[in-house]
Each structure stands twice: as C-alpha cells, then as structure tokens.
C-alpha cells in the first residue's frame, strides 16, 4: 500500500516538475536573462500580508528593496509603499509551445521586483532562472536517455539476435567504452567538440554526447535479454513457419526488452541530468546567459557566494527531490 502511494507521489512530483519546466515562460515572473544591475544578490522577498501600519491585506504584497552602503548583499526594505502581487500580468515576451506569449502568472508593479528566490550576481530572478534552467537540465536528461537507450537497444538486439561476428565486434567495442571511467570518457568526447557555441547547439551537443557515450551498458543488458528470448520455443516455432528476422524482432523479441528499457530509463535519466549539470558547472556545457542548473551552480565556486547567499543553492536543492523521485520510480518498476 505505502509502496503504491510512494510510486504515485513520485510520478506526480515528476509530472509537476516537468510541466513547470515546460510552462516556465508563463510561470516565471521575469525573463531568465533580464538583469537588474542595482540589485546584485538581492535576498528572497517575503510575501507579506500585514503592512507597516499593522493593517491586514488579503492580497499579498512585497516591498521594494534598495542596496545599503557599499557592502554587496546588504539590503533594506522601503516600507512606505507596498506593491501588491498581481496575477496574469503582461511582461517579458516568451514562447510557449511555439506560440508567442507575454502574460505571466504573477508579478508586481515597477519599480519593485518580486524575487521569491532572491537574485543572482547580475540581479536576475533566481526563480525565473530555475524554471527556465529546468527546461535545459531536465530535458537534456530525458532526451539523452532516449538516445542512449535507442542506440543501446538497437546494437544490443542486433548483437544478441545475430550473434557470431557482429556480436563479437559490438561487444568488444562496448568493452572499450566501458574501460574508461564514465566522466573521463564524457569529458574526452566533449573535448573534441568546439568549446564556445551558441546555447541551443550546446544543448543538442550535450544530449548527443551524453546519450552516445553511454550506449554500452544498455546494449549489454538488452543483449542478455535477447539471447534468452531468441531461444524461446515460440520464437523457434515462428522461425520454423518462415517468419523473417525483422518480424521476429518486432513481434517476439522487442516486447521482452520493454520492461528492461523502462527500468533502465528511470535509472539513467537522473544520471544524465547530473551529467549535464556537471558539464555545465565546469563550463563545458550550456553557457551563460542562458540558465541551466549546472551553470547556475557554477557561481558557488566563489567562496563568498558559497557562504553568504543560500538561495544560490536552489538548483542543487531542486535536484534532490527530482532524483529521489526517479529512484523511487526505478525501484517500483524493478520490483513490479
């Protein structure tokens, strides 16, 4: 019973997170690259209900903040004027599912800013960047998984089904790929590609690199399943009736690998998300100003940011529930 609740909770969380990432343009109050140079490292603004005179407002509001003195990150609220939170406000243009839009879920009047998760060193809204960064980090993981499992499935099936020379060649090259520690291999492949490229291409490149580098593990697993499936009596019978190889693979062999692929997917997605985060963190992935969870965390390499501004940790903390949910899912799938 509780296992089922956990599974549903994990699925619901993942669905919510991915939907939020898809709708980032609408949910985020600002464009991820909009800077406020006067507000570096502005702290998260609390939503208030009671104003300076002690009057309660049903509609939450925020105060505008200004930097105090010469110390970065010391801010004071201006309590003279409250800026109520408004819903469905027009703002920075974005594209959602290919359609242009400019209405945001919430926002406040200028000149105040609503930084629910604070701001980074350029005064960019952390929440907006977190949501837009999720688009890159989460979907890089998903797409790389599809790619890696696709290639792994194809090569594993061919290898297991045809055996002999093909099998030997594919499995020896799989060993070659597995002989390297995976992060080293990933970096080495990344090293051969150009370093400074536009974000959209960098994203595709990352997906390609992460997905293609790791084909060997799924290929081996799929091969194992195919090897046993190939010898099943109904497969032999179908072969006896003159079924073609393609038909056998499509009809009898690949359905057997579906469960394995699903379990593997739940395991691989979080790994690949982390791979993207690691590469972008080290400056080998998607680069500024486009946010990814990895390059947002890169700011923490400066000790003063690491120690002083806890909201800069947001992408790292957001990773934890996502990964937990994927692990819970893979556990639920493997004990089915």
């Amino acid at each position, binding site marked *: 019973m509780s296992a089922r609740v956990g599974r549903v909770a994990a699925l619901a969380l993942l669905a919510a997170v991915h939907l939020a990432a898809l709708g980032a343009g609408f949910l985020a109050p600002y464009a991820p690259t909009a800077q406020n140079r006067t507000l570096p490292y502005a702290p998260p603004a609390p939503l208030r209900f009671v104003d300076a005179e002690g009057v309660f407002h049903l509609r939450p509001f925020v105060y505008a903040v200004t930097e105090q003195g010469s110390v970065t990150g010391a801010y004071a609220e201006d309590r003279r004027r409250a800026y109520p939170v408004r819903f469905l406000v027009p703002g920075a243009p974005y594209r959602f599912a290919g359609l242009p839009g400019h209405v945001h879920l919430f926002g406040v009047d200028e000149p105040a800013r609503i930084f629910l998760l604070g701001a980074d060193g350029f005064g960019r809204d952390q929440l907006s960047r977190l949501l837009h960064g999720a688009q890159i980090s989460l979907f890089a993981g998903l797409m790389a998984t599809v790619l890696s499992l696709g290639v792994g499935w194809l090569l594993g099936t061919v290898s297991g089904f045809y055996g002999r020379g093909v099998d030997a060649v594919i499995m*020896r090259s799989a*060993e*070659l790929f*597995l*002989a*390297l*520690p*995976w*992060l*080293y*291999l990933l*970096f*080495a*492949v*990344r*090293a*051969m*590609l*150009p*370093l400074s490229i536009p974000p959209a291409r960098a994203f595709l490149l990352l997906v390609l690199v992460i997905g293609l580098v790791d084909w060997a593990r799924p290929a081996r697993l799929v091969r194992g399943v195919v090897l046993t499936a190939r010898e099943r009596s109904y497969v032999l019978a179908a072969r006896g009736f003159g079924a073609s190889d393609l038909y056998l693979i499509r009809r009898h062999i690949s359905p057997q690998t579906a469960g394995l692929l699903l379990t593997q997917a739940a395991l691989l997605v979080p790994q690949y998300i*982390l791979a993207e*985060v*690691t590469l972008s*963190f*080290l*400056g*080998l992935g998607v680069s500024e100003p486009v946010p990814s969870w990895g390059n947002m*965390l890169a700011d*923490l*390499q400066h*000790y003063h940011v*690491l*120690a002083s501004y806890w909201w800069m*940790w947001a992408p*790292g*903390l957001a*990773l*934890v529930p996502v*990964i*937990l949910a994927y*692990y819970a899912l893979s556990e639920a799938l493997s004990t089915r």
Partner: protein
Amino acid sequence: MHGLLLLAGVSLLSFVLVELAPGDYFAEMRLDPRISEATVHALRARYGLDRPLPERYGRWLASLAKGELGYSFAYGQPVGPLLWPRLRNTLLLTVTATALAWLLAVPLGTWWATRRRGPADAALTGLTAMLLALPDLVLVLGLLLLAVRTGWFPTGGMVSLGHEQMPWGARVKDVAFHLVLPVAALVLGIVPALVRYVRASVADALGAPFVRAARAHGIPERRVLFRHALPAAANPLVSLFGLSLAGLLSMSLLVEVVMSWPGLGPLFLEAILARDFHLVLGPVLASTFLLLGGNLLADLLLAATDPRIRTEER
C-alpha cells in the same frame, strides 16, 4: 593480456577522437594579428601536426613507449613528467577513499543485514536513500561550505604555504589534513551504494540453506555470521570492488576540480579548455590504466578469497 588489448584500443579510440577535433592549440594563434600565418605553419610543422593521422599516432605511440605520452603545447614539455605527480595525487586520494569506504561499508552492511525490520533498518534505508539522491556536486559544495564557514579544514589544495620547509612528519600531517575533505566527499559519495550491496549479499548468504544447517547444528550465531555467511558473501563484493572503482574515479574528477586537489582532474579540465590534445589524452589513459589495474586487483583478490576460482584455473 586482455587488459593490454583494451588499453591499446582505448588509446587508439581516444587518439582518433581527439585528433578529429576541429581546431588545435595553434588555431587560436591565428586570431592574433602579431603572429603571421607562416609562423603558425612553421610551429605546426615543428610539432608534426601537418602529418597524416596514422603517422601522428605512430609518433605518439613511440613517445608513449618512452614514457613521454606526447608533447603538451601549453606547457611546452612532454606530457609524461606533468602527468606522474598528478597521477600520484589522484592515487593517494582514491586509494585512501576506497580503503575508508570499504572499512566503513563492510561492518555497517553486515550489521545491517543481521537487523532486518526494525528502527535501525528503517533509519539506514532512509539515510542511504537520501545520500544516494544527493548529487555529488551538491555534496562536494556542501562540504566546501562547511570548510569555509567553520575554518576547521582547508578549502582546497593539497599542501599549505611553506610546505617545503616543514620537517618530514609535519609534511605528512599537512597532506593528511588537506586530504580530509576530499576523502570525506568521495566516501560519502560511494558508501551508500556499497553499504546496500554489502547488506544485500550478506543477507543473501544468511538466508542460504547451509546457514540454516549451521544454525540447526547449534553453531553460535556469531560464528555462523563470521565463519559461514561472510566468506560466502565475499565473492560478489570483491567483484563489486572492481566495478566501484569506475564510479570512484569519475567522482574523483569532480571532487578534484572543485576542491582544487592537484590530481588528474584539474589537469584534464585545463587541457580540454586549452585544446592541448596530448595533455587531454594523458589523463584519459591514466584513468583507464587505474581502472584496469583495479579490476586486475579484484580478479586476484577473487582468486585469493574464492577457492572455486582457484581450482577452476588448474
């Protein structure tokens, strides 16, 4: 023998990959108006970059045999001497971490296996799940935060200022002090998975018929655990030892870069960013070598601990 073949394959694969890369170290010089095209050509010719691929691979293999591993353009010296101290530092870090992790995981996992369904079981399940879900990067940054906030540990590097002037004993202590944080990161990163494996394989052994037979003979539980169950559980664990090295080396790369431990990791990243290709190949080969060495060690250990494998070979 198989390992050597693999190493040769990896060297060829990575060489071709790296050599296929667009642009090289000298390509960026072209952008500099002070350097003429002829100079760049002369430099490329001097380092043999204008030769066909097979010849370059042959030359690189020859320099590999001499222990030079090619030539680093950025440092202006052979890669070998740059690599060895880095390899030693990575080895120091990973060997310490592996030893500690196993020293921690085996007793803990064994104890956990004897204690199924209880508060300890639930607590350990939750704790290991949390640690497994904690990204390596966040773990490393968290430990770094601890160091920055408390000042208990150095925030990076391997030695303090004035390390060279210290007496021998103080130098060892200095390095050990700098080791604490990166080792802690690595151990916390790999121990949860290890503990779970140890628990699973010990629990497997404890549920086996021969253990029930031993219990039925009235052999004390302690002796059943240590004399009967543990040796039977050792085989999968030793195989895991070889496998766990791959994850450890990968994580070590990240830890070294973030905590500026002067191992293979920072050198590797620096080489990639400078497009210094022979220097990229060095750490790749070195890490493969470490991994294969670890697997060889695991195989030897397996033969030592499992009599079935010893007799098979005869």
